């Protein structure tokens, strides 16, 4: 059985959505930040952050986007194109764009004081830059939605984008007002039973 370690509303939401969508049995454990910093948890994720995923064979992995790609690769058919195809290459592009650009920019936005050895002195400016980087990334994603990131077919990349959209400050609704295609996507995805179930468990 899969074992997912996370925290409500964190990066564990996307892999949890995938596990629900795929209908595979899994166990969910909420991990307190102090526990995540401990040696025992770091054996699952050496960065001391959530999420971590233990695979059925006992192997532990981290990085939420990697979990999502692994879950679609190992359960082919429903939420991603076939590995090795050009369509799958586009899927990978969006997954890496979301994790390396959008997710990272959120971290700079919310934890700006951690990004300079001057701490709070630079925080306001780091946050301002992150705020404008967020708009650039969401602009690229809005242009990419037709109505899904891969065109007519839904994929796990849309679920990952949906998770990231819920983190927007001051609210996801504010983001959806700016980006109408993203807004439509969010409404569509929120109606999926697996997604609704996970969102309800993450408040």
């Amino acid at each position, binding site marked *: 059985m899969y074992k997912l370690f996370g925290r409500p509303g964190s990066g564990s939401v996307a892999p949890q959505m995938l596990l629900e969508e795929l209908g595979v049995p899994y166990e969910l454990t909420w991990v307190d930040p102090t526990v995540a910093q401990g040696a025992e948890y770091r054996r699952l994720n050496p*960065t001391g952050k959530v999420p971590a995923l233990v695979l059925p064979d006992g*192997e532990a*992995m981290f*990085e939420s986007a990697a979990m999502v790609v692994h879950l679609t690769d190992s359960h082919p058919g429903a939420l991603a194109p076939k590995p*090795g*195809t050009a369509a799958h290459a586009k899927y990978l*592009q969006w997954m890496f*764009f979301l994790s390396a650009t959008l997710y990272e920019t959120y971290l700079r936005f919310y934890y700006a004081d951690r990004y300079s050895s001057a701490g709070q*002195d630079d925080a306001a400016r780091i946050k301002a830059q992150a705020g404008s*980087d967020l708009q650039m990334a969401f602009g690229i994603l809005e242009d990419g939605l037709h109505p899904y990131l891969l065109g007519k077919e839904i994929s796990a990349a849309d679920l990952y984008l949906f998770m990231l959209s819920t983190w927007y400050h001051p609210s996801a609704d504010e983001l959806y007002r700016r980006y109408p295609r993203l807004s439509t996507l969010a409404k569509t995805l929120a109606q999926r039973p697996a997604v609704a179930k996970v969102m309800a468990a993450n408040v």
Partner: protein
Amino acid sequence: MSDSPSKGGRYRLFGFPRWGSLAPQLVLEELEVHHDMVWMTREAIKAPTYRAINPLGYVPALQLPDGRVIIESSAMVQHLTNAHPGRLAPPVGSGDDAIYIQWLTFMNAEVYATINCYEHFLDGASETKAAQARAEAKVTELFGILDDVLASGGPWLLGEHYSAADPYLFMLTQWHRPSKEALYARYPRIAALCAAVKARPKLQAALQANGV
């Protein structure tokens, strides 16, 4: 030479020497896949002909044999090993492949993203020293995680088996500040891995073209 996934077309990789195109180029060379390397200039990136290929104007970009273009260097690397299976990555969907994807994601989303912050943390003005110092310290910490993994099960990131994640790590070390030598002195297993990548016969021409 192996066939491209869609016959007729060739891969075209748009890049700069030593930039993010380095890892996908090394993987194309190692897989012996037909491709054209297109060296860009700052002017060429802004030209309408390139915008027609990649509207975002990003480099690197990889044009697939069917004409589609993808960005994100680690997506290129993973796609190439998926499309040309058997040599540079574990079987798709396996537990070992999960770890391979994990390292590519970690190196892109954490290490590469932090290296980018050497330049892009602040809004372009003068007080960047403190932010750069923090970014350099954080990158060094993140490389430490990779060195620990190599210590407990090297010599490659996936243990006994060389994979495309290894040239990706090699690429990241090229950008280290103050120097890659400083990084290698601190992390001997990363140094050994990079020396072994650099010695691979199939990579010599590409390494030379990148001046590394």
